[in-house]
């Protein structure tokens, strides 16, 4: 852990306030059972769970921060790293894999210039290889934020990624 782990002054005060409001509504007689729902809320608010935020949650719930960190690192849903504006989740379930999902993933990584689970330099994309998302009828399938793309090929990706780059640039201009 970093040295500044206990320092929460970099965190957004307003979001922190919302998180504390949420914690106040919880029944803390079973504080451990409240941890995962709190982490959900925190990640929803902040986008990821940096160490100082984990420490803050530990103090609020009166749990050892090692326990909080243990839970955060165990579950793939929680992220300690910042995420790009668009999360591209490529399904690596068996059905998608046998239909060439690995080649689609390679192409996306090449296009975004990242490694899995790392944010791209422009802050736009985080590419993840995920477990079966249960849309095997559309294999190979990927999602970008909430939108599902089915029956994709590596060649389709140029256009799809470009459309998001363009969309982001337009957002900035307007």
């Amino acid at each position, binding site marked *: 852990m970093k040295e500044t782990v206990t320092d929460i002054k970099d965190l957004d005060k307003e979001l922190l306030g919302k998180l504390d409001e949420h914690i106040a509504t919880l029944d803390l007689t079973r504080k451990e059972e409240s941890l995962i729902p709190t982490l959900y809320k925190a990640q929803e608010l902040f986008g990821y769970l940096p160490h100082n935020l984990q420490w803050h949650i530990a103090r609020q719930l009166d749990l050892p921060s090692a326990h909080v960190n243990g839970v955060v690192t165990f579950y793939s849903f929680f992220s300690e790293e910042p995420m790009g504006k668009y999360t591209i989740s490529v399904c690596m379930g068996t059905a998608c894999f046998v239909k060439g999902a690995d080649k689609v993933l390679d192409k996306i990584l090449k296009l975004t210039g990242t490694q899995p689970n790392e944010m791209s330099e422009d802050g736009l994309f985080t590419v993840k290889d995920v477990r079966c998302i249960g849309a095997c*009828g559309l294999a190979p399938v990927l999602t970008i934020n909430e939108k599902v793309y089915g029956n994709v090929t590596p060649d389709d990706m140029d256009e799809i990624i470009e459309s998001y780059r363009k969309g982001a640039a337009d957002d900035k201009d307007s």
Partner: protein
Amino acid sequence: MIKTAEALNKWKQTLINERAYRLELKICAGTSCISSDADLIVEMFEKKVAEHGLNCEIEVVKTGCFGFCGQGPILKIEPDNVTYVRVKLADVETIFNEHLLNGRKVYDLMYKNRDDEDPAESEAGMAFYQKQLRIALRNCGEINPEKIEDYVRNDGYKALADVLEQNDPEALIKTMRDSGLRGRGGGGFPTGLKWQFTRASKSDEKYVICNADEGDPGAFMDRSILEGDPHSVIEAMIINGFAIGASNGLIYIRAEYGLATRRLFTALQQARDKGLLGENILGSGFDFDIEVKLGAGAFVCGEETALIHSMEGHRGEPTTKPPFPSEVGFRGKPSNVNNVETYANIPEILNKGAEWFKSIGTRHSNGTKVFALAGNIRNIGLVEVPMGTTFEEIIYDIGGGIPGGKDIKAVQIGGPSGGVITKDKLDTPIDYDSLQEVGAMMGSGGMIIMDEDTDMVEISKFYLDFTQDESCGKCTPCRIGTKRMFEILERLTDMEGTPYDLELLETLSKNVQSASLCGLGQSAPNPVLSTMKFYRNEYEDYAHRRKKTAYSIDPEKCIGCTKCKRVCPVDCIDGKVREVHVITESKCIACGACYDACPVDAIVRP
């Protein structure tokens, strides 16, 4: 509020009588169809119906999954009993004008079993449905999962009312035992027996837990049930609670299943509003309520002890059994854990009787099993078949065979814990014991069909990559063993292995199998051992580094048409028009694009 069994029955009769629509339009709104714009199609139909002032005549119903995901979005019109497939936004206008307004069927949008056959009007004519028997999926595609009224009209909560009226938990457990229902999550433990054990545990508080942490890659039946018929799971959990003497239920569901979770919350609230969940259910004095716990993405949490730890707010690591959850479970209290598909069967068993259920299937495996059919198969989707159905029947009759004129190589069943069924064993009947005999297991129901091009070493590497990543790290054999196994497989496929690696892989597999703490580790080597047993030659080819990974061109056959050259994604084919083409083997990525493009079969596969 429904306060008595009689009131429930009366409500059901009213619901049946009130139904006066001329036509019902059922549109699949499962995850797969929604990603093909099914929700927009629903909206457009609703708008059209309103525009024409037909709200009292035509009802647009958003249903759960029909199962035939590869043909989605699917639309069914009743009572005309017509099914349309692959409906696009542009087709809405046609269907509305032709069928709904003028009663003319749109044959172009119907499914064809074969391209040269006449279209099949309804499910009865579709080969995909003919050998299926839907018990767990009985309401999926039939009712609107977001309306409790639809469920009640189809005998919903009747089993619960009967159970509470009889007020005899022992007799209820006996019925469950007599039915022969076994756990559908993979293990196949008799459900009635599990209930009996949990009932026998003495405690002031007990819990009913529904395992909806479906994590097998390629399996999505639990999600479909929760999306299509959430009330059946809720009803069964209340019954379970009554049988074992518990007043609290918990559903542990994957966070990735957003739609299923939302529908579950809707259904729980409706049941509470109607007095079917909560205090004094149907005036019986029995209290029961259900809470939903979200998982956070860990495959091992499908293991029941790990699941319980996760619900308690810990890392989802398993602990040794015994003690079983039926003695020491959630919050240290006796808990009964069953999976979604198991629960979905229960109301129907109680409505139709144990004898009826026992008459379906084979001697020691009763009832049906839902499989998620995927991979290299024509009809991808969710199928429910009686136990004892053979692989052949599923693949060729229901699945429509292998696409692209290719031959089948094997079937993978049981996901990362299972094994392969070879081509010559496809006549094996699917039940718990027959599968065990051929070295596979039922698992939770993923069934992946692999064609002749599939590389079995790559497949087992794929599964090992999954398990070594999902290993929770608590016990050494699984944490380190699966990682080393994966490394050996990587070495082999990178052409850096030796024959000694095969020996090492086998020994290590057996050690991991026998020394791991929980089911994840114990079954992790299964895909490796099973493929090594039946496709040893493929492993040997890698071990002796004689595996060919590049395609080549037969100079005798090549006519120099340049088709292969044009489709090659890595530009590794050279040649001029009307001259023999050549593949640079070092550059070839073995994608097979040239093989499919060649008009004269001149490409030779590795």
